[in-house]
């Protein structure tokens, strides 16, 4: 894979122009970095940041008769959000569902990732990585759809166990946990892999039993990975509306509200979206200090 650059391969001597440019870039780190970062930064800044900023601004406008957006500054959207019970309930429900999903994924992913990274032999580990992660990247929509078949009355769960949660909040939590599991397994597996075996050995040499080693040595070391995974499980749950609609029956989450309102009332949808971004920003700010964002 490595390509040794021999003199022949280097071809004819470079023009002095190229040489000079090269030397200039070599000496001027800042110019080099600026040249490299310019295009991606312009793209993300001009398109993505501008779009987000415009959305937040829109949240402070209002819509007249469900047709045109009136550019008149007001905070009515946010007061409506705050004062009407229905919106507060949905926001609280969404945060609780996102938390439950994150916890379930963590509980499932921790032992699995540990087993793959530290217990299983190299061949088994490799097979497990492929077996667990490959299908989980596969189509989001199909997976949300699959759970419809699982929980529907008369569906797979009912005919296998005689019981199904049916369409509702429980199914939403299970389906979302299913959908976002790889986002948790992947960073945890990488985290356990990076952890040197000697750490575990040292701990048991000093007399700790395996349980204690796992709790006091292994776990604290993967907390940043856990947080990195939770950023995704949390954020993806906050915004989901398709899976929720698919298996949730009448359950409404923040994403559903945004979706339902955006067609008729963009300013209010923008205010709702701002709430979910605000929740994420608070969450990111809380976890920033852990260094987890380096692992994203």
């Amino acid at each position: 894979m490595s390509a040794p650059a021999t003199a022949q391969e280097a071809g004819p001597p470079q023009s002095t122009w190229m040489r000079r440019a090269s030397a200039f870039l070599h000496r001027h780190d800042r110019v080099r970095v600026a040249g490299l970062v310019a295009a991606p930064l312009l793209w993300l800044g001009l398109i993505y940041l501008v779009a987000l900023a415009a959305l937040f601004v829109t949240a402070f406008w209002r819509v007249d008769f469900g047709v045109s957006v009136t550019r008149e500054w007001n905070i009515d959207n946010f007061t409506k959000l705050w004062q009407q019970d229905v919106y507060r309930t949905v926001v609280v429900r969404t945060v609780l569902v996102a938390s439950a999903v994150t916890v379930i994924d963590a509980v499932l992913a921790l032992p699995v990732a540990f087993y793959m990274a530290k217990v299983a032999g190299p061949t088994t580990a490799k097979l497990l990585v492929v077996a667990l992660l490959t299908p989980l990247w596969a189509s989001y929509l199909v997976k949300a759809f699959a759970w419809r078949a699982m929980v529907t009355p008369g569906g797979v769960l009912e005919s296998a166990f005689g019981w199904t949660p049916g369409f509702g909040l429980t199914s939403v939590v299970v389906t979302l946990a299913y959908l976002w599991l790889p986002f948790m397994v992947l960073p945890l597996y990488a985290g356990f892999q990076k952890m040197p075996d000697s750490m575990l050995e040292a701990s048991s040499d000093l007399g700790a039993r395996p349980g204690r080693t796992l709790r006091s040595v292994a776990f604290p070391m993967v907390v940043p990975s856990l947080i990195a995974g939770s950023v995704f499980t949390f954020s993806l749950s906050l915004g989901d509306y398709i899976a929720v609609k698919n298996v949730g029956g009448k359950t409404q989450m923040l994403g559903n509200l945004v979706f339902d309102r955006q067609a008729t009332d963009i300013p209010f949808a923008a205010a709702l979206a701002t709430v979910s971004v605000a929740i994420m920003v608070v969450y990111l700010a809380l976890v920033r200090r852990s260094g987890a964002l380096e692992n994203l």
Partner: protein
Amino acid sequence: MTTPGFRLSSRSTWTLRFFVALALAFVYVPLVVVVINSFNSDSTFSWPPRGFTLEWWRRAKDSSGMLDALRHSVTVGLAATVVALILGTLAAFALHRNRFFGKEAVSLLIVLPIALPGIVTGIALSNAFTTILGVGISVWSLVIAHATFCIVVVFNNVVARLRRLGGDVEEASMDLGATRLTTFRLVTLPNLGSALLAGGLLAFALSFDEIVVTTFTAPPDVQTLPLWIYSNLLSRQQAPIVNVAAAGLIVLSTIPIYLSQRLSGDGTGGRL
């Protein structure tokens, strides 16, 4: 690979294995159900299946709506991947081993389009496209939107490779008299090959599969495969074809992921 000093009791090992088995069942049962259901002779969903048929697969082959959607998905995915490859690689080189003011902000900005809920990205972009950016909603807005959230996968793959590569080979090359550009062309780039391929495959898979941002940024005449499935999900007439498309999508979207896992070679199998 239990280490000499650290040994789990056989009970703990079996507990771990139980969790692994549970996770495997959790992962596979729903997918298997979808695949089995595409051969279900009953055209409305029934479980257990009434009988076996290949009829739906035969009909899907001629479903022009589905095939058009597949074509759109591939075109948009390829275009978005090309943009993401260029921008993601540039960003990776800029941020790797360079310290500068605002570096953290830039890396946060790269991950933001997938770290924020898809619906936020979706309505933000569609709102901006139709108002201040003036791009309008066309196939281009769709490609721009997809490229935006695909940059991060390329970036992550290239950064991981650059880290593993270290600076030694490049320094050796420059010590031997090669200029920076020559070093880049003959040493760095060839070593990045498989990371670029892995990142590109993941970006394509991400784009191919995306539905939320797509819903808001796609024009009405460009239906991608996920959009087509979603719009026909509850239609009685198309239900069996949707099952086939879903089963096919499981296989199709898995291939690039599998390949990128093989290629990225860092064990974590292509990072997101």
